[in-house]
């Protein structure tokens, strides 16, 4: 055979071998995924059930991600179930009861003041199931640990910023997120108390409008549009949900009123950070969902190991403005 023919045959042979190798590899992948489902190479040691409010608030999505990430480090598999605590209380209670009956190694749930909810938490604790409440608390229950931001501190931090960055006599609008009115009422009251405390320190600034963003209420866009359009006297808006703050910023852009209203939001989803960078949102208060997730898992692991944990863990807050954006957010 001529050298050219030999080279051509060699190339085709190499191509055949490569194709065969790749084909066998893919076939083995398919065989492995088909025969040894599921595909995890390491198995979790225990499991816990996480019930999070059915909401579009990015905060809970970030909390869920943080929980999942930290749980894996401890060999803990988390089963997430939606908790329609604001939409359908019966279903929410039934979901909690189901979670308790399934006897997980731990429960991570939002808190609520609802008596039945509290009873179920107590039932779980009585059944040797550790219960952690996060974001909102059930102080009347026997839950072992609450991991969440201190509402008063949050309001105080927002008030201090408003005092420093708004004109004396400014009118302030507040939109409170209420995924669970039974639980959020206490939390929101704490926020308002902190805010009022800061505003009392000097000047004539006053909260003139307070709205609750409930799941069954009009959309956050409608609430913020109403506040901005129908209350031109309001020059400061404070939101306890990043979703509402983003909606307000977008409305200001649409109405060409950027710079006329000082917006303060919470948390740091990418859209909000983008508005913050552009100067449309003045500041955001980080509730540190990642820290909430980490502290929740650490507490659960500690409870399982020693049946002992702090009853309250504060992940901390930090106010971020456009100028401090380059610093690490958390």
């Amino acid at each position: 055979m001529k050298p050219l023919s030999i080279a051509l045959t060699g190339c085709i042979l190499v191509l055949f071998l490569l194709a065969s190798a790749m084909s066998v590899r893919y076939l083995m992948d398919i065989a492995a995924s088909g025969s040894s489902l599921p595909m995890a190479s390491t198995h979790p040691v225990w499991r816990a059930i996480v019930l999070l409010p059915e909401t579009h608030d990015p905060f809970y999505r970030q909390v869920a991600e943080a929980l999942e990430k930290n749980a894996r480090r401890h060999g803990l598999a988390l089963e997430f179930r939606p908790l329609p605590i604001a939409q359908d209380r019966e279903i929410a209670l039934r979901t909690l009861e189901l979670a308790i009956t399934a006897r997980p190694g731990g429960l991570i749930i939002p808190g609520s003041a609802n008596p039945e909810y509290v009873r179920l938490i107590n039932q779980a604790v009585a059944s040797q199931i550790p219960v952690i409440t996060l974001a909102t608390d059930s102080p009347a229950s026997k839950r072992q640990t609450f991991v969440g931001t201190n509402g008063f501190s949050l309001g105080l931090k927002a008030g201090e910023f408003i005092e420093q960055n708004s004109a004396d006599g400014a009118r302030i609008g507040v939109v409170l997120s209420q995924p669970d009115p039974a639980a959020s009422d206490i939390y929101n009251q704490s926020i308002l108390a902190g805010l009022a405390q800061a505003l009392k320190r000097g000047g004539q600034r006053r909260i003139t409008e307070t709205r609750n963003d409930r799941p069954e209420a009009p959309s956050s866009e409608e609430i913020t549009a109403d506040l901005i359009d129908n209350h031109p006297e309001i020059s400061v808006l404070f939101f306890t949900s990043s979703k509402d703050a983003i909606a307000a910023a977008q409305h200001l852009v649409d109405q060409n009123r950027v710079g006329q209203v000082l917006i303060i939001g919470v948390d740091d989803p990418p859209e909000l950070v983008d508005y913050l960078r552009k100067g449309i949102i003045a500041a955001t208060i980080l509730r540190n969902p990642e820290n909430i997730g980490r502290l929740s898992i650490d507490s659960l692991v500690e409870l399982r190991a020693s049946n002992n944990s702090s009853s309250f863990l504060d992940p901390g807050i930090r106010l971020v403005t456009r100028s401090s954006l380059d610093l690490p957010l958390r």
Partner: protein
Amino acid sequence: MTGKASRHQLRTRVFLFSVFSTLVLGMASLYNQLNSKIYLRGMTRILERSRPYLELQDQTITLGNLLETYLSTKNYSTLKEYWTRSQNLYTTVWGLDRTLTWDRSSLLREDLVELIQSYLHATEDAINAKRGRDIPAYTAAFGRSERILGFIRQTTADLIQADYLEGSRQGQLFADQLATLQLFNILMLLSLMTLGVILGFWFSGRLTGPLSRLARSAQQIAEGNYGVGIAPYRRKDEIGLLTVTFETMRNAIVRNIEELTERAEIENRLMTERLDNLRIKNLLKVAELHALQAQVNPHFLFNTLNTGVQLAILEDADHTRLYIEHLADVFRHNIRTLDRLIPLSGELDSIDSYIYIMRIRFADRFDFRVDLPSPCPDPMMPAMILQPLVENAITHGLRDRESGGWVEISVSSGDGWLHLAVTDNGAGIAPERLERILAAGDGAFEAPASDALADEDISRKSNGIGLTNVISRMRLHFADPDIVTIESQPGRGTRIRFRLPLAEKGDHVQSPDC
């Protein structure tokens, strides 16, 4: 390798190539089958993952119905069946693989198992309360079991949904992997087919190439080119055997042809020699005929001349006697048999007598010179060579000269040859005629003497032996085409040279004066 195995090597190669091709195709087909089987098995496992749990749910519901029946009827057989089924359910649940994994389906399965166990506890509590006639307790326990049954249904539904989603995800993953797999399979098959074509082409070329070369060689041999080379083939298979056999056959043919050619050459040479002999004999016959014609009863003439010599002695006519004696010597020489060899000295003696007669005859018209070395070699030579040449010079060369003509006979030796020359200063020979004479004299080697020249010779010679006859006899006798050369210039004369070999001592004797 044994001879038998070697002979079947080609058949083995063809067989192995066929087996190899079949195996490769078969393996490709089997591999394709394996792909389909693994894919189907994977998809089946995905789709059937929930089935055991659906069966668990059915068993749980059946158990709930039995519980409800028992609580309402307190029938013993129902209770017995309940216990049986309850034990079966326990066994089934405990037999399940409860290895936890990170996916949602695994967690829901664990929920389901825990819920079923809780359900079994609740139903047992209800039965025990019923048997203890504790109505509030069994009512509460039954209510709890009903709630748990609801949880089981819900979790089973969640599990089916999760499995469906996971199945869809994995099915999509499978489809993606399968698409990639098919792409590689197509690439693999295409490259395999291309390799097959190349190997088939190469193998068929290897198989038929030597045969084609052999066929071309056979064609050339058929066209008479027996020296064609046969490409070497080193393998000891059927083609190798054929090549060796073919080469042997070609060598045998070449050898036979060489033998035939050699035999033909020998026969040809013999024929030539036979022809030459015939020609010599023919020439001698012609010369003898001419001589006989010239003799005209030579014995009578010879006797008459002797009588004339005696008469001249009686009359004291010495010149006449001498003349007649020379004339008798010439006649004596002329009636010699021409196929005999004589020494050069004999030929020179005869020419002396001839010259003496010619001097008497032509008086001062011509001059004759003889230039001999001393001592003069005396080789043997055919008779009647010099006299025809001198006669030719007188008859043709000097015929028209009234005076001043001369003929010179010179002899010299050198290089193993004795060189003789007959030179005249006569009319010379025209080039065309000279060419014809040499060509006619060359008849012994190329063609018979021209009849026209032979006739001419006969008509013009007094003694009937012409120049072409002399040349032919010399050439035939010595087998040397260059033994006679003629130089002639029209109007200036002619020189005829010939040479006699001196190599063999027996052929001649040394004579002090020839």
